[in-house]
């Protein structure tokens, strides 16, 4: 990426290692990205990828969970292991001077985790409790419900934390099997910051010469979404109605994905964005309004979200649907396109401030089987896109949105009536 010195190496066994040198601050960030997140949870094992990720740091190699925590926290470092939809990510952030003590942990955790029964049970219990607590948040409820509409029982159809019934039955041997598969679908390791000499040697230090058999992540098709308009309502005793209107679209790096990214910038980035101005500034219908469009290996969701007082449910639904319809009816103006581009560039610049951000972005891109300089290329390609191409992308990918509602009964009724009368409801 521009400005940063990068070097590519290969670990014994095949895992690509990227080194991004940013001397000065004395900080080191390491990200190990392994393909196979919650979308690879098997039937009846939803939540396994996250449960395993949580247990990785609870003992590995010669270190018990306590000893590992003592080492990491004793260095004042941050270590996180989390499963997302498309991969499991291990993140380490520390003072560069602690690299010798901490870098060996990364491969040790994925190759020699203890998976102690008692610690699995603890982690399971915590995940179950988190799933329960999340239901306090009406946004989470609407989000979960929309996920069902967009992905059904497909690979993207559940929260990475899992599903209660499955989570309760997961056992150690199932997790052990998943550990054996780590890296086989692709993995990549990115180090950014003030790099220690011999970073590669340090990474391998715990393994006594044993190689980690793994492949560089290849470009491949990811999970699909459903492509039909649906409505789902969930009654909740809240003041506001939460509305989420969205469609499953396409993968990061796919044709039209960049056009959708520019539409995202146009609609949802900053206080001059279309949804902010139309729904908040012009109508005062919401405080929080925006667009959710995460990077995915498969059909990423593209979602408008807002919450509004119950008595204004009909207005808000009407306006939100009108904004979606607008995307399909007309191309954005040349000025709006230019503004969207400026925001895209601005976001890229702001996302490269810290070593962690740099490592994170590159790990994600490489993990998707895309080239190291993907972000820079996207900046150039985005500048070439026309408003007509944005319109074409919308017409191809956004024609059949689904609506998820969460709120009091009266508001649901009003919103549903508006939806049923609108042509987008199919």
């Amino acid at each position, binding site marked *: 990426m521009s400005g940063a010195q990068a070097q590519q190496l290969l670990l014994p066994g095949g895992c690509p290692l990227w080194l991004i040198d940013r001397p000065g601050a004395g900080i080191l960030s390491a990200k190990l990205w392994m393909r196979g997140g919650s979308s690879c949870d098997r039937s009846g094992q939803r939540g396994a990828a996250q449960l395993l990720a949580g247990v990785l740091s609870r003992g590995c190699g010669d270190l018990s969970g306590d000893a590992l925590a003592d080492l990491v926290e*004793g260095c004042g470092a941050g270590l996180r292991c989390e499963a997302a939809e498309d991969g499991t990510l291990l993140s380490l952030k520390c003072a560069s001077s602690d690299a010798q003590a901490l870098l060996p942990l990364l491969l040790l955790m994925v190759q020699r985790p203890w998976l102690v029964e008692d610690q699995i049970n603890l982690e399971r219990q915590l995940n179950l409790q988190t799933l329960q607590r999340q239901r306090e948040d009406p946004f989470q409820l609407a989000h979960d419900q929309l996920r069902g509409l967009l992905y059904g029982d497909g690979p993207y159809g559940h929260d990475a934390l899992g599903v209660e019934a499955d989570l309760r039955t997961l056992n150690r041997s199932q997790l052990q099997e998943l550990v054996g598969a780590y890296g086989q679908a692709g993995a990549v390791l990115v180090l950014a910051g003030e790099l220690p000499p011999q970073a590669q040697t340090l990474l391998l230090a715990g393994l006594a010469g044993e190689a980690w058999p793994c492949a560089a992540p290849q470009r491949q098709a990811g999970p699909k979404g459903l492509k039909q308009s649906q409505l789902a309502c969930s009654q909740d005793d809240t003041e506001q109605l939460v509305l989420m209107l969205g469609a499953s679209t396409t993968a990061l790096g796919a044709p039209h994905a960049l056009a959708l990214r520019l539409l995202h910038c146009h609609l949802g980035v900053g206080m001059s964005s279309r949804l902010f101005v139309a729904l908040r500034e012009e109508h005062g219908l919401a405080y929080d309004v925006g667009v959710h469009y995460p990077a995915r290996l498969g059909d990423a969701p593209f979602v408008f979200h807002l*919450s509004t007082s119950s008595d204004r449910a009909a207005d808000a639904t009407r306006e939100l649907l009108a904004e979606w319809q607008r995307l399909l009816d007309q191309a954005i103006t040349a000025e709006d396109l230019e503004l969207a581009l400026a925001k895209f560039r601005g976001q890229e610049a702001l996302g490269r401030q810290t070593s962690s951000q740099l490592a994170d972005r590159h790990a994600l891109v490489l993990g998707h089987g895309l080239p190291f300089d993907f972000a820079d290329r996207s900046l150039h390609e985005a500048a070439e896109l026309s408003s007509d191409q944005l319109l074409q992308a919308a017409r191809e990918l956004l024609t059949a949105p689904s609506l998820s509602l969460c709120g009091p009964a009266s508001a649901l009724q009003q919103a549903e009536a508006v939806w049923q009368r609108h042509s987008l409801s199919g």
Partner: protein
Amino acid sequence: MPEPRRHQLDNGVSLVQIELPQAPVVCLDLWCRAGSAWETSAESGLAHFLEHMVFKGSEHLDAGEFDLKVEALGGNSNAATGFDDVHYHVLIPPAAAPQAMELLLDLVLQPRLDDDDFAMERQVVLEELAQSEDQPEEVAFQELLRQACGDHAYGLPILGRREALEAHTTDAMAAFHRRHYRADRCCLSVAGPLAGLDLERHLRESPLAALAPSDHNSAVPVLQLQPGKQRIELARLEAARLLMAWQLPGAADQDSVMGGDLITTLLAEGRRSRLVEQLRERLRLVESIDLDLNVLESGCLVLLEAVCEPEQLDAVEQQVRQVLLELIDTSPSEAELDRAKRLVGNGYRFSLEVAGSVAAMVGNSQLWGRRHNLQRPLEWLEGWSTERLSQEVIPLLHPDRAYCLQAVPA
């Protein structure tokens, strides 16, 4: 570490600049002593409402024009209202920083406060209030502060009371702005690659240089947290909460703030911290337990939140109590202190990587008359021993000094 460069305008407004040559953006951060603690009772919510209205334009800028200009330059802006102060910040590519500064100062210091915009934005603020009231956890925290802080401003919601919001007028808001956005109550902080920008020169003709000083001095009373205990039922709560609040010395004593940071880290950051280890890892009574230090001018607040099953609440409270009493009884070990120092020190160093957080740190310090450099907090950190913690900070966290709120699902 880069040294802050300080400059004072003729009217007393200060500018503080930090050179971060590697940063991709400049952060401009305008601070003002105009948080909710400066409101009269009738003005409830006005400080925050004003922060919203500022973005509705000025004498020279139409509603939304500021955002449009800043974002077209590849930047972004935001603002935050706290109890003590409010700040407005812009992240912008370096070359556009002088222009962004001019726009920002015009916007914040000469807001238009149009009646129609006001009526519309009131709706937005009421939606913000409704949104927070739909989060039972936020409702529980608000109740904790209300009970613990009594009549002090820290016990009142920053968003304001609904009836008060519905009654506010542009005149009242203009009066609040006139009273608090004054030369001796504002400062501008800038961090990023600043070479060649010559912001001082640009400032001389700005509205910041034209601000008059306050007519008279005023102060927010010192917080006096009332220990106590209460149990409430909340609709839509799924898991029970144990919430506790303690008071520590105010932000003016930064050395003591560092002590507070150390002890909260020692107690509740990481698996090997005392509370997490005992309550989550060993006894498995909680889903999570957090202890946060809220740095405030009239008295810092340490807030504890434990998430658990309702039937475990009493056991959780008992265990928290026991952990604290043990710590009061026996000083922490050197290893524990060392661990906490590394965590706090690294957290601080990590935060220096971002122009926005550097600008916020030096801006907030400058606003409240604290003129230490970026190295100083690390020296304070090293000055803490286990003995000093045991003498000066740990006794303040005695469970009997806390306000304790149990919230259970209705």
